[in-house]
Every structure is written in C-alpha cells, then in structure tokens.
C-alpha cells in the first residue's frame, strides 16, 4: 500500500470534569491513506467525534489532548504553533459538521462563509467569489449565483449541508473530516449527500474520514472502517470483510442491530444490552466485557490488544467471533445478554 497521508499514534484526549477525568479518546492509533474513505463508527460517547476534533486541535474546553502524535506529511500537528495549525485547518485538512443549521453563522451570508474558507488562506476576494459559485454549483445547489447572497436560514437543511461541504472542499484539501454530516437530514437528502461525497472522493481524490453511528452510511461510502468503543478502537478492516465476518463481539452486535428487510422471520432484531460505560471510570480488562455475550475470564482483568485476526483486519478481543461461532453457538444464539454465549456470569459483575 502507498504511504499514509495521516498517521495517528496513541492519541489521548481527556476532559477534566467536576466528577473526574473523562478519557474520551484513550490510545487511538490509525493510518489514513491518500484518497481513501475511512469510516469511524461507534455509539454516542464512544469518542469518535472527539478523535476527529483532536486531529485539528479543535477539542472544546475543558478537553485537552494529553498525548500522542498526529503526523501529516511528516509533521506532528500536535506540536505545531497555533499559527501553523491554523494554516493546515481548512486548507489541507477540512472538517464538516453534523448540524448544518447551527454550524453556519446566522448573521453572515452563505457565499461569504464559503469565500472566507479561501480568503483565510490567501486567495483574493474576486478569485474566492468566483470559485464559491463554482463550488456551490458542483455540490448541486441550484441558482448558485443568487444563493450566495442568501443567509443560512433562507436555505433548506440539505442545501445548508451542501454549502458546508462546498466550504470544506474550497481549498481542495487532502483530507475531509466529516462528523456525522447526514445525521440531521432526512433520508432522501442523506442519500444525496452521501452520493455527493462519494463523487467528490472519486473525482478530487480527497481522503474522507466519515464519522457516523450508522453502519448503513459506512456500507454506502467507505472502503475501510474502524469501530470505536469507550474511547478505543476495537476493530478495523475493509468494510466488506468486516460486514461479512466481524471479529469483535461489539461489531457483531452493531451489525445485528441493523433492521433488514430480507431478514428471516426468526432472526429477531437485537439491541446491545446494557449501557455505554462511564469514561471517567472505565471497566477493567476489556471495556466491552460488562455487555459482552462471549466474555471469558481474561476479559475481566486483562486489556486485549488490537491484533491481526485476518488479512488487513485487526480486532481487540480475547475470544473473537470465529471462536464464538465455533464454540459458543453465536449464530443460533437468541438471547444475547452479557455472558449468554460463554456462560461466564461472575458475581462481581459491574
């Protein structure tokens, strides 16, 4: 494979809250390759958004990146001066956000806000303006010449998100971080936005990091996926492979919880039992063990490492789903409460 454009090593971001330190991102490492489209999935609070924000050092107060490296073109973004990281933001690495309603400034014209992304990086007013119209046309906003004068509240939700994407792509960045860009939109508009992102990824070669809680979005857009749980990566690999043969019980449960039209009648929709863990005081051992149907003794005390489980696929699990299928009857399991497959239900359960 080519050399990665972004290398993240042991990233840790914490929030000092009154009732303890929340370890929102706890030792995340991954590579991003030029032009690829990587999905980061996980529940709310799994640390996926904070991971993306940490890359550009946009973590809100009282969050703080405590350690790690983010290497972009052999430079550590975490060691740069404020001035240097500002030059990277929006020019080399751009970011778009979940709620296009609140992510655009209500008192500035839409066109101006797109212009600004370029003018902040040295483009002249006239050049920026011409390119804004070109960009808005490219993201399929009709009548872009007149829409630039509109304020955000005059645009529909879908159009606002298109404007956000135009803003993100303004300087033809090498990487686009997309933090749940379709979550706030209705389904048809979601599909259009995903299609648009896929086209732009193909045409412009922009690497996309797609943060979502929706496995369907990953299936539609990404080539590789990373699953996060409680601030850590629990599994990663090519999308088709992961969908076909997930090795971490959490990934397996996530995929089980997607409603499918073609599901057999007896295959009931399964939600994951229990609650996401408290990140101020995460469970010992594997963080998923309090909710895991296939946990064994090791899981309670020893933290599993992210290891190769198949070509290009890594998972952090003492059991892995291959074994759970073989030995614990995972495929025929009806009830998936904690310990259901393995029968390990110790008294001192958290």
């Amino acid at each position, binding site marked *: 494979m080519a050399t990665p454009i972004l290398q993240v090593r042991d990233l840790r971001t914490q929030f000092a809250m009154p009732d303890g330190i929340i370890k929102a991102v706890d030792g995340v490492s991954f590579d991003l390759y030029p032009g690829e489209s990587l999905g980061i999935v996980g529940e709310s609070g799994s640390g996926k958004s904070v991971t993306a924000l940490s890359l550009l050092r946009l973590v809100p107060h009282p969050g703080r990146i405590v350690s790690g490296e983010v290497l972009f073109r052999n430079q550590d973004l975490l060691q740069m001066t404020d001035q240097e990281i500002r030059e990277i933001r*929006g020019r080399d690495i751009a970011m778009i*956000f979940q709620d296009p309603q609140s*992510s655009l400034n209500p008192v*500035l014209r839409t066109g101006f806000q797109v212009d*600004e992304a370029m003018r*902040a990086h040295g483009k002249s007013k006239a050049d920026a303006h011409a390119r804004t119209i070109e960009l808005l046309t490219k993201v399929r906003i009709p009548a872009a010449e007149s829409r630039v004068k509109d304020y955000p509240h005059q645009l529909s939700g879908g159009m606002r998100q298109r404007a*956000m994407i135009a803003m993100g792509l303004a300087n033809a960045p090498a990487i686009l971080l997309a933090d749940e860009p379709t979550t706030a939109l209705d389904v048809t508009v979601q599909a259009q936005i995903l299609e648009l992102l896929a086209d732009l990824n193909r045409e412009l070669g922009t690497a996309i990091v797609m943060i979502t809680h929706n496995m369907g979005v990953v299936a539609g857009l990404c080539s590789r996926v990373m699953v996060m749980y409680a601030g850590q990566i629990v599994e990663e690999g090519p999308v088709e492979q992961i969908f076909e043969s997930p090795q971490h019980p959490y990934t397996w449960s996530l995929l089980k919880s997607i409603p499918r039209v073609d599901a057999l009648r007896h295959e009931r929709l399964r939600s994951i039992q229990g609650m996401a863990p408290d990140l101020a005081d995460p469970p010992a051992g594997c963080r998923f063990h309090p909710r895991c149907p296939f946990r064994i003794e090791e899981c309670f005390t020893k933290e599993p490492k992210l290891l190769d489980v198949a070509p290009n696929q890594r998972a952090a699990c003492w059991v892995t789903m291959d074994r759970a299928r073989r030995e614990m009857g995972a495929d025929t399991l009806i009830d998936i409460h904690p310990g259901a497959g393995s029968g390990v239900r110790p008294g001192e359960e958290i």
Partner: protein
Amino acid sequence: MTRYIIRRLGWMVVVLFGVAVVTFIIAFLVPGDPARLYAGSNASPASVAIIHHQLGLDRPVYVQFVDYLWRVLHLDFGYSYRYSAPVLPAILQRFPATAELAVAGVFVEVIVGLPIGILAATRPGSIWDRITMVFTFVTLAAPPFWLGLIFLYVFGALIPIFPLGGYGNGAPQYLFLPALTLGLGGAGYYARLLRAVLLDILPKDYIRTANAKGVTPGTVMFRHALPNALTVLVTQLGMDLGYFLAGVVVIETVFAWPGIGKQAVDAIFNLDIPLVMGTVLFGALLIVGANVAVDIAYTFIDPRVRY
C-alpha cells in the same frame, strides 16, 4: 419589514399616551397652588383667583386633561410659571448640553466596557477575567454622585487637571469628568453583559466551523462572535442613550452641568409644574424613540428579523 416598523411606531404612540396620562395625574396631585406661585407671595387673593382662572385651573379635571392633550399634540407643552416663557423652547435650549453628555457617556460605556468584556470572555477563569470582573463590580456598585464627587476632588482639587464642574461653553475638558462618571457604571455593566453573551456564543457550532476554516482568532471574535452579540448590546445601548438623553439628573447636579436634568430638578423645587411635566414628556419621547430606533436597528443586525 415595513409592517414591523409600523407596528413599533404604533406602540410608541400608545406608550406616549400612557405617559401623558400619568404625568397629568401626578401634576394634578402635587400639593401647592401654581396660581399663587405665579402671582407672587404679595399678591392679593383676588389676583390669585384671576390667575387661577387664567390658567384654567378652575375648570373640571377632564376638560383640563383634554385641553392638555390637545396642546401636547401641537407641541405646546405649556408655559413655565417661573420663567414666564414657553416650556418647550426652555427645554430645547438646555437639551444640547444634555445630548452632549449623554452621547459622551454612552461612548465611555462602549469604549471601556467592550474591550473588558472581550478580554474576560476570551480567557474565562484567568487572572485577567478576575481582575476585570472585580473592577466592573466596583464601578457598578459605586453610586454616581459619590464617584462624581471623588473624581472632582481628585482630578479637580487635588490634582487640578480638570475644571471643578460647569459647562465652559462646551470646552472638552469640562465634559471629561461628567462623561466618565456617567459612563463608568454602564461600562461595568456592558463588560459583564458582553462577557456573559460571548461565553454563550463562543462554544457554538458556527464558531467551531470558523475555527475549522483556519481563520485567525481576531476574525473569529470580531466577525463571527461579536455580530451575534450585537442584538443584546444594541438593546442596552439604545435604552441607555434614551435614558441619558432624558436627563441625567444626579450627574448634571453634581457637575453643575446646564442640561435638562438639572433644569428639571430646579423646576421641582420651584413647583414649576408645566416645566416638570414638559421635561418628563420630552424624556419619555426620547426613551420611547430610542427603543423604536433599537427595534429598527435589529433588522440591520440580524437578517432573521428582516425577512
């Protein structure tokens, strides 16, 4: 937008009518006979009665009230007993001094208050935040008459760099201390208000978007955050200006500033009811006018009001 403005103007008329009613009632309830005052202490009961009649004070109350409204509508605010001259010209003659002081006071509020508010909001919890917040607390708590006297003592008597009050025919050194006294309390209020509003705005998503674009912190503050805080600030600013224009009684008195506030105080001591009523009405007009101006300013600040 036109409908919006017409609606605001309609309200202005209603409020002014209310003020006229209240002023009239108060003037009617005030003890003391204006006719006696007007006639002088040596006048005979007969001449007082004549003046009583001349002033229309022997007519039924409702007739007096309708007559009063009618005259006010024609900008006839009555005749000052004391100066034996029409009230409105007397007010208008004093008004420029008050206007000068009011504008200067608002200027001090903004020039001192906004930078402090921005400084405190960008570094919440820091030592700068604490120092500035203590400062604003002091300026807010200090009564203006006391602050004015302290300033006069320190910068007028002890270190005589400013004159000890008076108008000085509009020379700027006469304006400085009254304007500072007037504006300082407001400045503290503005600093706190702006800090609170900015602390609310800075965590917003659109500020994060601006940062993600790579714009400078200055641009984030002045182009993205402050305009969103402007609605709140302008509301306060408009009310302050209207309030100051209506007469800054205490400060004009402390600094012997010849404005309408000081004139109104004198009028009260002299039982010069028409002049008091005229000043109150004039002030109400300015305050209500400033509020309507603020409402109209909204449409320029926030595009969501405009459409």
